[in-house]
């Protein structure tokens, strides 16, 4: 469904961030993108929706060649690519609902966006999505009154409101604790399975990636050095991606069952809740 052909990006400073990356991702597949800092992971997913303009190569989503689109057509195409960010990228002064509804921004008219009057179907869909990510109780809270895990759920809900075909996920768990990280990763992969969404997830935590994704791509200095199953990540492969290190503690020894689903995130501490409302 998503095909990258010889995608290359050279920054103005001369740094070659991506070197002829060629990939093919079928519908419903969740891909983990690993690699050292500066390997080009962020650049790769930003080249797909052209937040960063690629220097050469093509990106094809279904039948559409994204790299050749005009600005207007690109905007239309971006509606079908949801994106989830490391720092959540919410408007902190708006409520959860308003943040989620802004996912519809690509579809509504200018005047509706100016007056923040979104159409009823969009609002209904927003409620459904918020229910799915477990935030139905927090609809009217301001975004800055939420915990990190809750904010990331708002980010996911907003991406879903775009009705995307593809999710681009940029280090969703980098600012979260280990338990919340797992919950968020589980939520993302479950949603992808329900909706048959393809997803590319940038991630630093190799063990976490192995736990949840179906395929791992390793980048080093802008080149794909590994592309295969999570279980294929041996010490040699990791050395190839990251450089020499004792990897024994990082690699999953044998396939394990996914740990039992933990219940809802722990509530906020009492004090924070008091000022939150």
């Amino acid at each position, binding site marked *: 469904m998503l095909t990258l052909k010889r995608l290359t990006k050279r920054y103005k400073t001369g740094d070659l961030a991506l070197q002829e990356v060629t990939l093919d991702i079928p519908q419903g597949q969740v891909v983990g993108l690993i690699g050292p800092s500066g390997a080009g992971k962020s650049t790769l997913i930003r080249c797909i929706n052209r937040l960063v*303009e690629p220097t050469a190569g093509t990106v094809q989503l279904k039948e559409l060649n994204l790299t050749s689109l005009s600005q207007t057509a690109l905007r239309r*195409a971006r509606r079908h690519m949801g994106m989830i960010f490391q720092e959540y990228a919410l408007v902190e002064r708006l409520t959860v609902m308003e943040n989620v509804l802004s996912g519809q921004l*690509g579809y509504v008219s200018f005047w509706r966006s100016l007056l923040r009057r979104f159409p009823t179907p969009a609002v209904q869909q927003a409620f459904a999505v918020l229910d799915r990510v477990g935030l139905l109780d927090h609809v009217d809270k301001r975004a800055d009154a939420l915990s990190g895990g809750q904010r990331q759920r708002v980010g996911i809900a907003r991406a879903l409101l775009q009705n995307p075909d593809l999710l681009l996920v940029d280090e969703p768990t980098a600012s979260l604790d280990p338990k919340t990280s797992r919950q968020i990763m589980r939520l993302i992969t479950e949603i992808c399975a329900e909706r048959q969404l393809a997803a590319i997830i940038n991630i630093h935590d190799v063990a976490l990636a192995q736990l949840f994704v179906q395929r791992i791509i390793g980048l080093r200095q802008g080149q794909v050095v590994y592309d295969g199953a999570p279980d294929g990540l041996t010490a040699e492969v990791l050395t190839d991606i990251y450089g020499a290190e004792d990897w024994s503690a990082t690699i999953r020894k044998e396939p394990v069952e996914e740990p039992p689903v933990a219940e809802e995130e722990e509530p906020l501490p009492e004090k924070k809740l008091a000022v939150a409302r």
Partner: protein
Amino acid sequence: MTDISPASALTHYSQKRPWGHFVALLAILLLVAASFFAADWDVTSLTEAQKRAQALGRMTLWLGAFSSPELSGEFLKHSWELTLQTLSAAILGTAIAVVLGFLLAIGSARSVCVGEENAVSWRRNFPLRSPSAVLCSACRLLQDVLRAVPDFIWAIILVALIGLGPLTGALALALNITGILAKVYSELWDSIDEREYEQVRVLGAGRLKTFLYGIRPLAARSVLSFTLMRAECAIRNAAVIGAVGGGGLGAEIWYQVRFGAWDKVSTLILFTLFLTLTVDLVSNSIRRQLRNDPNHPQAVKSRSTFATLSRAYVSAAVILIAFTWSFWFMGWGNNAAPGGESRNYLKPAAELVSGDSWGNLRFFQRLLHPDLDLAVLGRGDTEAAAQFRAGGKAVSLFDNYGPLEFYRPAAWVAWEGELQKWFVWRVIKSSTVPLAIAVVGTLLGMLGAILLTYPHTLAFQLEPDQFTGETSHPLIRLLRFIHMTAARIVGLIARGVPEVMWAFLFIAFFGPGLVAGTIAISIHSMGVLVRVFSETVDNIPYRRFEQSFMGSRMACFGSVAAPISWRDWMTYTFFQFESNVRAAVVLGIVGVGGLGFFFTFNFEWFRFEKAGTYLLMMVALTITIDRISRMLKLSRVRR
């Protein structure tokens, strides 16, 4: 990653000399030297004993005349009405300017108007690359013209159009501030990194939606803070713009000065100071709430929906009431002089709509055809050119010295003499006066502000124990508090008194000329700059000071606070320089000389073509400074 050997590390550093700093320093020194040579600096009032005595005598007389303000009830009441009139003109002007400036800024902000584009290398800055880029350039040009012509000169032009009165002042302020705000807003929006509003760009929304949901909210606080600073400035200018026909306190001051009624003038000046200082304090307290102070964080309060909404509605209501009141007061308020009748000052605006005033525009067609005096150069009108040549008045640049004799100083003198015959050259030379005033005045103001910043900051006077770990004696704390208060009062007065008033004070001492103008500008700049400088320092988290815990407070200020804030200080100083150039043009009108003086002189003698040339020079001056600053990225716009 390869290891960097010590030797290669050394070459690395030796190759990375900060040439930019040397060049900048050299450029500033050259500018200062040029300002001293290009214009005539008369400091004899300081150096010669006899003149010094005369100047002191003048000053004493002057101050003596002001020492007994008239305090009769009727005149106080009249002054109060005039103060309100000034305030209403300023509010009206600012309100119009905020609306128009916001709209214009949407056009002239590249990130909003042009948005994302694929253009590479030289095409990125080519103005004809797309329709939106053309619109963007056009808006920038309009904003530059509005900004380049000072409010005093807009007032002089508007007086001819709709007559005297506070409305003229308000509209003149509105025109000038529109240009300034449009520039500031668009630069604030442009300086927001594209990555900060990625989440809106990925939604596939258009440029305006990206603006509404991404750019505008991110810049909202700085936009509001800058607007308040401009509003303050508008009120200061409204108080003096009456001198050229803008009504309010300034007009009355000018009127009473002509009669030599110094006691009344002195009362009016006191009212002006009361107005400007109050406004300064009010806007300071609002801006303090808008500031994100890392050392005194406000608890994240998620208020109830009702509280959040009501807060927004209350501020909107206050603004609306202020605007309505200004409008009402301008038209139907009591603005009568003692024994006179009050007038509706909004009437001229109705004439502006009905079309009567536009008849006066005939004059301005002449203003729009600036006299470029081409005949002297031997172009254009052949007959006139021949006449000039016969009379020996034509410019024949290379008659005596060819261009290859550039190494002989005499050649330059002769060339200058020849060029002097060309009117446009004289116009260009007249712009050296405001430039010289602005360069020297801004530099002196900046140095003064840096010195005053140390006692002005909260961090180094009231709360140094939070990062030095010292526990000071209560008496020492009291002493520091007194330091800070004194520094703040100095700053408040320095910026609260309009430049024009400072200029009058120093003209009394130095006589009309460059020196008085420069000192006026430098004192005012010092007051404006010290506030933003010390805000920058107070915005540094105290944790950053902890590295210098073993040093004194002074050492900490010099080695940590100043380097951290340096870049911001330079940006603010440059902004101030730009506005000082315009202020210096205005000071020209009131007696300092140069561009502003020649414009007014020609305008008042109906030599509109010549006045038009001076006007063109003002615009050219501002645009040149603006483009140079953009090229050197002095105003920190990253795109």
